[in-house]
């Protein structure tokens, strides 16, 4: 059965953050930051292996990273790292059933208890902390 036969929304539907509130934004950012951090991690392992080429090799690699573009990339990595960590802890707690509310007879207009303020605050905190960490990183890198 093809994608069209199944009428699946596809990747466009999966990553669309506009329809279901901040939770879907967090879902998308979690995926993007995870992929971004994995790419950075692989690059980091590769770049640090230049230490094996001695001081000249290491300094040559360092020169590449200590440019404006290098600092900007590192700042984004810091933001991704903080968001992925804080939101990851929130999601892990949620996955264990922590903070998702208690089952109860629903009353109209049916506000889902699992989409509560605690989790929303967790998402906003992750975004704000990521922004602060990124700004701190930029201050450290460009302040020198």
């Amino acid at each position, binding site marked *: 059965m093809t994608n069209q036969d199944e009428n699946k929304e596809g990747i466009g539907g*999966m990553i669309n953050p506009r329809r279901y509130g901040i939770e879907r934004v967090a879902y998308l950012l979690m*995926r993007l930051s995870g992929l971004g951090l*994995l790419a950075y*991690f*692989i690059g980091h392992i590769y770049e640090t292996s230049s*230490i*094996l080429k001695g001081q000249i090799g290491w300094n040559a690699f360092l020169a590449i990273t200590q440019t404006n573009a290098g600092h900007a990339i590192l700042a984004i990595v810091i933001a991704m*790292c903080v968001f992925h960590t804080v939101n990851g802890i929130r999601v892990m707690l949620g*996955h264990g059933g922590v903070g998702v509310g208690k089952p109860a007879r629903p009353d109209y207009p049916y506000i889902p208890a699992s989409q509560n303020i605690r989790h929303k605050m967790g998402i906003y905190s992750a975004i704000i902390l990521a922004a602060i960490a990124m700004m701190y990183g930029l201050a450290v890198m460009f302040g*020198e």
Partner: protein
Amino acid sequence: MRESIIMKIHYGTALAAIALVAVHILMRLTQGFAESLEYDSVIANYKFLPYAGMLEIILILLSIHGFNGLRVILLELKQGRTYEKAVSYGCVAAMIALIAYGSRTIIMVNTGMT
């Protein structure tokens, strides 16, 4: 391996990595960011066995967590027996390759083989 065991490992590696990566980043900041990246300083870090051991553990934890995360995303994107096997074995192979490559750097610098 059952998916629940894989995902418990996924969560466990994440929690452990948070603590160790925090130490790794703090080492850069406490020494001064630029100074900590100087050649002699980095070599000294690698030659300090507990720190080299910590780097090795971070390497293993993040490789497992990262490539399992990638496997999860890829499994959700497309289905099919052959594709899913290729994704699972491919991610394990990439994980092992990255750990091997990173370990090579840590071991060679730590033992002075540069």
